[in-house]
């Protein structure tokens, strides 16, 4: 984007970039430093030696997987439907879906609490998976629909001419083409499900059901907030997501680029 033919301009650009990035790195450094205060690496061993810890990671993974599956299934079918098929009042449905984007999680608490306890889903992972999926779908459908809009119609027409019905067109033709946006959806949904705090806090009560975002709680006493271990727990919780993103970064970028809102 910028002229980089001269060495001097390259150096200037590099410096500007580094300076801009410092405020982003600063809190991360503070976080790690804070987690090592006091007992140092012993903070990490204490957090890691929590007996419930592996189970928490497993539960978080189950929640993330469940949400991703539901969201992917609903999103890709809906994107296909909105973009390529005929529906009466299509835009009305679409706007209804988008309107749900405006819902903050806090608003869901009272009704969810009443419903979940009544249907007996309390303290089960479903109490977290379904609401989370419902909250993510509007945005992912938005992204995916844009992407599918970009797939040329003749491609699908050709499949029809060859006699494929809708389901086969979807499965064999559309899905492979939508891999980039599916990757973007997977990354976004994974991040949001892994990091969710409020729903597990209220609806998951026993250690065999709880997720990893509740770990810092163990170190928040009534009088003694063990900040060092809270930060260590925070670093440990964040690590899988950071690693996952770093590895999948290219696919994510490509997916967003392809589905990008131009």
């Amino acid at each position, binding site marked *: 984007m910028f002229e980089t033919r001269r060495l001097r301009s390259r150096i200037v650009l590099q410096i500007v970039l580094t300076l801009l990035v410092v405020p982003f790195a600063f809190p991360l450094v503070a976080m790690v430093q*804070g987690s090592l*205060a*006091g*007992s140092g690496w012993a903070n990490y061993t204490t957090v890691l030696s929590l007996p419930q810890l592996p189970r928490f990671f497993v539960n978080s993974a189950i929640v993330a997987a469940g949400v991703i599956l539901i969201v992917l299934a609903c999103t890709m079918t809906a994107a296909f439907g909105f973009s390529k098929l005929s529906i009466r009042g299509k835009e009305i449905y679409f706007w209804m879906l988008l309107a749900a984007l405006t819902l903050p999680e806090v608003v869901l*608490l009272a009704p969810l*609490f009443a419903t*979940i*306890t009544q249907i*007996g889903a*309390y*303290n089960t992972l479903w109490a977290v998976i379904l609401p989370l999926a419902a909250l993510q779908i509007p945005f992912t459908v938005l992204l995916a629909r844009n992407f599918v809009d970009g797939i040329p119609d003749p491609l699908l027409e050709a499949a029809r001419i060859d006699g494929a019905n809708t389901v086969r067109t979807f499965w064999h033709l559309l899905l492979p083409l939508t891999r980039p946006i599916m990757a973007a959806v997977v990354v976004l949904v994974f991040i949001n499900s892994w990091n969710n705090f409020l729903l597990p*806090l*209220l*609806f998951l*009560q*026993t250690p065999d059901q709880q997720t990893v975002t509740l770990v810092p*709680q163990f*170190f*928040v*006493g*009534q*009088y*003694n*907030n*063990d*900040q*060092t*271990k809270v930060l260590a727990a925070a670093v440990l919780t964040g690590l899988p997501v950071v690693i996952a993103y770093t590895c999948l970064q290219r696919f994510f970028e490509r997916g967003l680029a392809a589905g990008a809102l131009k």
Partner: protein
Amino acid sequence: MGVALAALATFALSGCSGSGSAGDGGSATEGNITWWSWTPDNDLAQREIDAFNQQYPNIKVTYKKVPNADYTAVLRPALASNDGPDVFTVAAGGRAGAVQTFAPYAYDLGPSMEQLLGANWRSKVYGAGADAFTVKGRVVAAQFAKVGAGILWINKEMFDRFHLSPPTTLADWVRVCQTFRSNGLGCLREGVGGAGFDIDTLHSIANSVEPGYWADALAGKRKWNDPTMVESLRIFGEFTRNGILDEGAVGIQQYPDVNNDFLSGKVPMVQMGTWYSQYTTVNSLTTALAGAGVPASTPKVTIVPVPFPDVAGKGNPNTLFADPDAAQAVNAKSPHRNAATTFALWLGGTPQGQQVLADNLDSFPTLNSIQPKWDGIQLVNPSVQRPELEKVTAALQNSSEPRTLGMNAVLQQAVNDADQGVVSGQKSPEAAAAAIQTAADANR
């Protein structure tokens, strides 16, 4: 035919008792039960459970500590479902676990209390507590703790270093703080707003202005915008300007910020109540220091309770005010109701339970005639701390002035807001007091 019908009826009845309702409640001396509370901390709770198991080895208790701020939000869905805790702690009022909110879910412990302590059990325990936890004639929870406030805690080493003695008047206090500040230290550090400890500070000031006013206001006999309250708020607001209160008070939290700073030896004095006595013990202080993020070699401070100074200058004596702190309630839906009742009553109703609690020093026992056994408690600096602790404990035992009993969440929030307003200089004392009264009036 008759036999078949009878068999069917029995079948149906036994089927009914298994689901939802608690059935016969299980055995009173065996079972696995869960206990949820915001207090005490895990290590103290473990001591209490261990002592319980010496008497009842076959009841396994799993303690779950929920942060104070989330307690009410977490408890509601739990109790509404069928998977709630067997025993849950409730408070006499306030924002976390108020007994009024959760009374419908609790099992009536009246008969069991009578069985344990006799028909006149109310005369054997802290009266205000027994009343607070009886809702509509049902004994909703068994109290086990009483706490008080109206004191300051000082860092003895810091005072000694500058040859200062604890202040007894406002002028004293200003001077003491000047000395500390000119040596690069803070003075009184407090987190104003949010958690509510500034309510105690305001209460102590009000007691200095006019003893007995606060209790009357709590009971609704006096107004919150009374000149006494206005004067108290004015004095509190002055703390920022006359150098007593550290700056930034409205932006920090009592827990963890002030707590960590004081216990790691950075601050000369704080306003905390009798629960803070636990940090005079070596065990609790060590745990607290680890949590504060300071190296293990940090020297352990000697903290000492001192009376709140006479800031109004009228010579009114300093008094300790106290409230029922917490009580154990039993979930009416619990399938292990009887074992849960055994545990719930044990902590507050038996000498063994109350002794463990008393020796932890974070709460005062509610069963009459139980006192901490000082000889068995390892203090950081016994010669200095023990006499003062014994004084405070005696005052707490005899205290009959309420702390916040009857103050609901809305009113507590209003007082927090008023404190923040005057301390940050954004509100005049008159306006702040008027706002408290408005909140009290709007409240049903």
